[in-house]
């Protein structure tokens, strides 16, 4: 989607176990939900 709206150089960082130990962990695991970091650039 980032490329679709005109971003370039899209990259992403490590997967983060955001919900580990939280009350919502079970639901997060059911849909394999994790945190991610992303970076993209608007073309010059």
């Amino acid at each position: 989607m980032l490329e679709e709206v005109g971003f370039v150089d899209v990259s992403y960082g490590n997967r983060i176990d955001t919900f580990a130990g939280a009350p919502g962990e079970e639901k997060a695991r059911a849909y394999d939900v994790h945190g991610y970091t992303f970076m993209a650039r608007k073309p010059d």
Partner: protein
Amino acid sequence: MATSELPVDADSLRSEVRDKYRDVALEPGAEHHFHTGRFLARHLGYPAAWVDDVPEPVVESFAGVGDPFAMRRLEPGERIVDVGSGAGFDSFCAAWQVGDDGHVVGVDMTPEMLDKARRNAALVGADNVEFREGFAEQLPVADGWADVVISNGVINLCPDKHAAFTEIRRVLRPGGVLQFADIANGTPVPPGALREIDLWTG
């Protein structure tokens, strides 16, 4: 905003999201289905220098899902927009990085979060940060103003992600950077469950 094909009603979703984050602003210590506060910031790997000594109100309503500064540190003098700034923790981390020559604009749609963010700015003496009320899909920022847009745990809450990203692109200068943290699911959520508002609000 093209919302006709969204699996949930955009206005109901916004109102549910506001209710949820009003609670996180006013009762950060209550049980939420996600982690919050200083514990969360440490869990996500934020540097101790940003987390350990900040006054409790500044970090207690933090509800991010990753560290948007992990892939790239901000540079002195940069102009930053924080989309969905909540109680302001990331905006202050940004302010410390960009310094007095930089400027940070936090945007959020939940009044209680904005109030808290403004009180927090006074608490930490952050003169280079301001908070504006608005939507990710309609940012109250001029075209091309920002060097960098950051965001943490917000785009997943937007019913129209395409509109949010288009708006972010509009406020960035040519060559500007979007760096953000968000959640994504590896297993597809069934269409029926997509209409469960609970799955969206957190």
